[in-house]
């Protein structure tokens, strides 16, 4: 799992300075498409990565969202509660 998380991070590694949000506590029922759907309300989601652990078939509750612009990221960060599938997720700025 650590490896897949690292891979996720690496995939967005070049995103230093790009508008990327780091999301934690994603419920197990949601995968990247659910995350993408939720965050689409704040702007255009360019990349959405929720790495799965191929050894268990579950993800570890974290993911990365890359927006098209800093402004969209700020929109997302400004909303206090992000509830996906009825669960409150934590969203952090990722840099």
């Amino acid at each position, binding site marked *: 799992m650590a490896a897949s998380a690292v891979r996720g991070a690496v995939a967005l*590694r*070049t995103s*230093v300075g790009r508008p990327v949000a780091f999301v934690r506590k994603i419920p197990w*029922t949601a*995968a990247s498409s659910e995350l993408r759907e939720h965050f689409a309300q704040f702007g255009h989601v360019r990349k959405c990565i929720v790495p799965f652990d191929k050894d268990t*078939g579950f993800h570890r509750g974290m993911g990365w969202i890359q927006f098209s612009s800093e402004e969209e990221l700020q929109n997302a960060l400004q909303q206090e509660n992000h509830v996906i599938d*009825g669960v409150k997720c934590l969203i952090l700025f990722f840099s």
Partner: protein
Amino acid sequence: MAALLRPARWLLRAGAVPGLPLPLRLLAGGPGRPRVALCLPAACPGPAAGGLLSQARLYAIAAEKKNYLQEEPTSSHRRNASQFDWALMRLDNSVRRTGRIPKTLLQKVFDNTCHSGSPGGNQALLLLRSCGSLLPELKLSERTEFAHRIWDKLQKLGTVYDVSHYNALLKVYLQNEYKFSPTDFLAKMEEANIQPNRVTYQRLIAAYCNVGDIEGASKILGFMKTKDLPVTEAVFSALVTGHARAGDMENAENILTVMKEAGIEPGPDTYLALLNAYAEKGDIDHVKQTLEKVEKSDLYLMDRDLFQIIFSFSKAGYPQYVSEILEKITYERRYIPDAMNLILLLVTEKLEDTALQILLACPISREDGLNDFGSFFLRHCVTMDTPVEKLKHYCKKLKDAQMHTSALQFTLQCALLANKPDLAKALMNALKEEGFPVRTHYFWPLLVGYQKEKNVQGVIEILKGMHEMGVNPDQETYVNYVFPCFDSVKSVRAVLQENGCLPESNVFSQAELKSEAVNGNLDYILSFLESNTLPFSFTSLRGSLILGFRRSMNINLWSKITELLYKDGRYCQEPLGPTEAVGYFLYNLIDSMSDSEVQAKEEHLRQYFHQLKEMNVKIPENIYRGIRNLLDNYHVPELIKDVNILVEREKIDSRKTMQLTISDLESTLEKLKAENQPVGDVLKQLILMLCSEENMQKALELKAKYESDMAVGGYAALINLCCRHDNAEDALNLKQEFDRLDSSAVLDTNKYVGLVKVLGKHGKLQDAINILKEMKEKDVLIKDATVLSFFHILNGAALRGETETVQQLHEAIVTLGLAKPSTTISSPLVTLYLEKDDLPTALEVAIDCHKKYKILPRIHDVLCKLIEKGETDLIQKAMDFVSQEQGEMTMLYDLFFAFLQTGNYKEAKKIIETPGIRARPTRLQWFCDRCISSNQVETLEKLVELTQKLFECDRDQLYYNLLKIYKINGDWQRADAVWNKMQEENIIPRGKTLRLLAEILRNSNQEVPFDVPELWDEDEKHSLDSSPLPEESNLQKDLLNACQWKKNKDAYNIFLKAQNRNVVFNGETYNSLIKLLLTKDNFTQAMQVKDFAETHIKGFTLNDAASSLLIITQVRRDYLKEALTTLKTALDLEQIPSRIAVTRLIQACALKGDLESIQAIQKMVNGLEDSIGLSNMVFINNIALAQIKNNNIDVAIENIENMLTSGNQTMEPQYFGLAYLFRKVIEEQLEPAVEKISIMAERLANQFAVYKPVTDLFLQLVDSGKVDDARALLQRCGAIAEQTPIFLVFCIRSSRRRGKVLCFTC
């Protein structure tokens, strides 16, 4: 807690004695104060389960203390001790939180204990005691098995058992209702030569009674009497159970009378035994009567006891009476873990319905609607294989009761985790029925389960199940979870087809493609793309292709595939068109690679681009620019020109950015103005240039002259310039003009801050506040650095004593929400009065801040000053306030630190000896850090001395801090004294402390009198984590940000600022800064940063990338010696410098004729050539060049000839490229060398049939315009014309430089 405050009050009350200086008055109250017995709530045992462990803890600590006294503190013992602490902490936490220990946790702790070598007696006791009722999720028999496993294993590992272990085992037997023979047990103890004690006998009696064996119990009881052991309530309670289980309720009740006669009043335990006895018989009436009797007496049954009665009823088959007992439960919060424990136990006993009944009765707050209290119940039901129909019913109940938001989903997760496919399927169907989505990834854990056993049939079943549920497997499902189960991807298709679950869509083909791509099978991909008939969009292929490309280095296939995608209509239908699609593809390809990967594959990529060029593939210019930036970031700018050849030339922007001087711009401006043409761009450029030269006067004049042509950007720069020059008047005017120009325009944060600063400084408060308001309205981004800037503005004003400015600006900043009120941002409010020595107001303001914002800025400084001035009343006031608002402990610490700071050590001692005070590690560390940063050696020494007896004080950490300050002062004698003091205090130093001590001693050339422990990662991390100051981390963050955005000036300024404040960052930060400065060619600054880092961070070194950049820069500046040293240092640190760096250094040495250095480098990188990517030819070319430069032409030529003609060739002749050497020799016009080389090349061709050198020479001659020489060479050596492969590469390479035409006359 009130006890805490008393002594402190005493101290201060005594202060009322008039005429004495404060320190003496404080002393007056000291000696006579009463010592109050101490019982802090946290130290009292919690629920029974916790109590059990708390006992274990007390025992453990006592045992450990004993060990410390007896043995030398060896390292293995320390490991055991920390192992024990860890185990205890884990188990204790679990019991406190949940009332139980999960089996996996106990197993983990057990395994860890075993691995630790020889587990101590305390560890064994801890583990054994955990095997009883703390494991409600395990069946009774399993628990005892577990206990036996632990017992045997630890015994084998050499643990020595004493009577406490045997008693613990007995307790576990009782809790687990384990049937055993007490006589055998006693025999076993005797065999081990362990004397049973009273507790042993009591528990054996209970064991007999549990099975209704009164006779057995009586035998032991008689034995106890002969030994004159006291008979306690526990024995009588056991007898109640004993008689009841023997079916004799009458005698059971009689025991109570017997007890009273024997002078023992029956307590809750006895009544509980009786109540359980009735419950087991289903006698609700007697239970009720007894309960009433207990209520009337002074006795009190706790919820936990009532839970036991419930369990007795349920287990005996009388669930109907549960609700009557439930009514009596008070549901105190602290019994929730016990309730959970009971619920789990009931589920384990297959009494799930009763469990649910109790769960639903639990008073859980349901307000936030995000409560998942029922999870533990559902999870355990799944583990215990509760039927699915029941589970669905429970889920519904929990949901209706708002005890779980997503009960079904959670249960499904449990089923998946427990790998129960049938249950999972049933639950998914239930989800579907309820209208919830069933998503593809729900099936993945199941597939993983089958995949691990390579169970193809299972996988097929799941795929079929998915189909039935209307869920289509996606590409990921196939690639990650289905394919790995099969030997080859091909066989999957066949098997799926056979079973009729091959989907019709192209998802499966895409999955195949991706899977082959992952394996780098580009042949497959090409043939698939060629033969494929399904419509595919480029985008859907992109990810797979990139993976495949990166895993295969077959450039020809890369190109062929790209060409196909570019030219074949099947793949480029989207609106983008082939140019953009392929452009994006190239961008993504490079983007997906890491910098080292791109560097390593530079040559491959170059070939690829050239082949694309040959195939007439083009990309748009804007995408090219993106790729260019990527390559720049990856430090392979050499590749940029190779991508550039692909740019679609038609639409190239002809505008050139030229470097113009100010005077050029001025004249252009005048000219344009005269011609009445728009001047906006030039004007802005000129203003920016004047601003960067800090020429405010001229910039303002220019603005005045061209007022009507001014644009927003120009104003912004001017405003900032004026702020920098402290010109409030003009800054404000400009801002107003700026607003008039475009009221919606927003400045960047720093410019706003600059305005606020300059306006505040010049007393234009209203204007400053207006700016702040605008920042809020326009939603300007507030960064940490911004908040810090606000602080500095306020603090500056406070130090200048500008009350109005500080107060109004602070008010505005905080009420507007630009910065959250914090001790930092609010401290200037207090500073104002501290600076004026107005202590009453300073305290007032601090208190006011607490009322408004719940923060107490600079209270330490206020207290210190108050103590210095002897303001007893105000101290009293401050203390009252702090203790009321933040607790007495906080107040005591505040006072303690203030006394220490002001040198009133005796008073400090009194405070820290207050009974009940305990160590607060973060506060102690705060004060230590303060002492260290202001180098207050004596204060810190006193702190360490005075906290010797402080409860739970981490002595080692304090001594570590003391050593830190000694290190700064280079005081090895005192450091050595610390070593002795620690032994005296029996402290076992941590590794980091010993290492620090050793370092101090070594630095002063002293002998180190102990073994220095190896560096452990953990310790290192810990020391790094030791809470950096907020300012430090803020500055560091700013610096890293600036580095990211490549703002080298900002970054460097932050560095200077930090340097002034003595803030030291971590090594990585300096490395980033140095890298940035070097890429921007700020060599001197970079060296300054490096020097600073090296002198302030021990063992600071440049990282690979920074070292490489440094080498390149040094070479560029012709500092070859230094570059060589940098390379050596990097290699000594086992770094891998970049190829460019090494190559450039070698080339520079060669041009200087510095043969020695080249050979030295060759030796240094020996063995690393592959990792650096360095071809041996670099050395051969450059050594020869150096020799030629030294006029040793013959030696050079002889060497090369030998290499090419001797039997043991190091290099295949076709790769023996000497083009670099030839080019340099020609360029440098070393005619004699050219001549001799020419002879050599011809000789090699004519006599040894080695044509590569002569061809290279020919091409270099052509390339440098010596066409006649080239023609002559060609005539002498016709074979050159046949070396087509060499020509091809050359043509490709030179065609990218300029449109060169080669003419061959052959």
